[in-house]
């Protein structure tokens, strides 16, 4: 029944791609002539961009950012220079578009994807929100025109009118459909598209969390997966998948995402990723250290041993990753195994950078042993 409703909605969407009175952009040139009310919306979006920039929320990785931008330009060459992709230093599984063409991709979502085709599927979707002026459409459709008479509109208003918190189901379906077409047109393998949604659906279920923002108002993930599978069922081409470049650029991002997850106490997410061999294979071996941290944080029966095993694996598979030695030193010191504790603290000091935060502790503990 749910599927029938979904298909009915999709056919409705395909019949009315733009709302009456709101014309979509056809190329970058169109963005030069905006309706006065639209200009206000763009102004808000620019303010939002500045806030994100000023408050240090941009993840600084010029190579990865350039790669995301290049992928976007491949999908929408006619909008080159108008759609700007940035990486947001947040582990939430989210990506969002602002009405002025700024697109933010969280490191949390980037680290969960497996290749360029999957990246392109999300970028393709987000760009449609900009091109089809979905923020503007929602304002018009909610008859919220009074808001335009206010010169300074709070960011929360903008957030509710951008894909940060998701659009209506019809607009999300439109973005899915048009994004999919672009994916195929740009030469990507569309059979990859459903995989990212499947991956995230697994995560949402395993963690017992509410669907993250990216999906909050979207059609249910399961319907979406089925629809993407249906769309790509007859695809016979040999589209680009692009695993190698993608995964080499994501190495540090994945490690930082794991570290940030631990830093925010999202240990369940780390355990989910690092205990699943299909997911773990995309992560650097130092990820085992964060698995150890995650078990230490969870602190259930048997977790102390699981943490110790994970740290040992980290030593074996990522022998130059210094934080593991510090943790092992501390563990052995607490269990009064002085010789092992000394060994690990010494190893830590020999490997850790001179300005590493924990050096002081390691020196102090070595002295006391």
């Amino acid at each position: 029944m749910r599927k029938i409703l979904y298909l009915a909605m999709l056919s409705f969407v395909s019949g009315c791609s733009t709302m009456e009175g709101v014309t979509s952009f056809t190329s970058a040139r169109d963005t030069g002539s905006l309706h006065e009310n639209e200009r206000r919306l763009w102004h808000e979006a620019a303010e939002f961009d500045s806030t994100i920039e000023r408050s240090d929320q941009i993840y600084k990785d010029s190579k990865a950012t350039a790669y995301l931008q290049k992928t976007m330009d491949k999908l929408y060459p006619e909008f080159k220079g108008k759609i700007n992709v940035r990486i947001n230093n947040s582990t939430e599984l989210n990506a969002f578009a602002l009405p002025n063409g700024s697109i933010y991709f969280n490191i949390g979502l980037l680290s969960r994807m497996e290749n360029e085709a999957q990246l392109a599927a999300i970028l393709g979707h987000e760009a449609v929100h900009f091109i089809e002026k979905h923020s503007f459409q929602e304002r018009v459709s909610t008859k919220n025109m009074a808001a335009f008479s206010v010169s300074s509109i709070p960011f929360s208003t903008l957030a509710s009118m951008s894909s940060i918190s998701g659009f209506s189901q019809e607009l999300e379906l439109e973005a899915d459909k048009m994004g999919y077409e672009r994916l195929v047109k740009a030469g990507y393998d569309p059979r990859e598209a459903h995989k990212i949604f499947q991956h995230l659906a697994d995560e949402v279920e395993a963690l017992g969390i509410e669907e993250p923002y990216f999906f909050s108002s979207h059609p249910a993930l399961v319907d979406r997966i089925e629809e993407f599978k249906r769309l790509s069922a007859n695809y016979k081409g040999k589209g680009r998948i692009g695993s190698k470049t993608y995964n080499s650029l994501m190495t540090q991002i994945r490690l930082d995402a794991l570290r940030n997850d631990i830093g925010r106490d999202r240990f369940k997410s780390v355990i989910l990723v690092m205990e699943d061999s299909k997911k773990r294979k995309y992560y650097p071996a130092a990820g085992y250290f964060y698995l150890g941290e995650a078990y230490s944080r969870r602190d259930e029966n048997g977790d102390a041993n699981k943490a110790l095993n994970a740290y040992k694996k980290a030593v074996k598979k990522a022998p130059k990753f210094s934080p593991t030695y510090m943790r092992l030193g501390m563990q052995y010191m607490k269990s009064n195994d002085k010789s092992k504790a000394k060994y690990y603290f010494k190893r830590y000091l020999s490997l850790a950078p001179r300005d590493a935060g924990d050096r002081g502790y390691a020196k102090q503990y070595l002295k006391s042993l």
Partner: protein
Amino acid sequence: MKKLLILITLALLTSGCMQPKKWTLTDDMNGVVKSKSFQMTVPERWVRLTTPLTWEYVEIDGENQSMLLEAMTVTRDGADLQSINVIRRYPDNAFPTIKKKSRASMLPPEVADLYVSELRKRSGLERLKVLTNKPAKVGGKDAFRLVMQYKNDDGLRIRIVSYGFVDKTGFYTISYRAPYLYYYNRDYKRFTKLVDSFRQLKGAHEPPPQIPGWMKIFT
């Protein structure tokens, strides 16, 4: 119903919930501030709360819960410009947002990690950065000294320095928070003097108080 309302109002007026945030200017007569569990010397000509706060609301999984604590705030120009907070949390709710207890056996770096996670989760400041994390001593106990920083929405750098330690009576922090621009450096030395003056008192070893039943009505 009327009786219940009167009772609630009376309870609020006579208890911690309506604790008036009265501030007093410190001078050489009242520079040493004593709470139940600790004492410290507050910089002269700064203002401090007249009585420590004894509980707070903490949002856990979207719901407000009341938590016992002992907290003292001092400032010179106003809490937004610079503030020093001295807080004792009881072992069972040492890190309430991340639902972790404190144990006397925890090492300072472990405590520091939990503390940062608690701050990030509670404030929503995923971008809070740890600049340094070094060993320290507070009141003769092994402690951490964390220097953290974040930029607010206007791009202003806010720096936080926290000293913290755990023992069997709970988790103690002494934190200084100020905009890096002008205020941080100006008042930092006064903060370190306050840290040096910190002493734990015998009262710390008394059993923790109970949260009054009426307070739970509002949580």
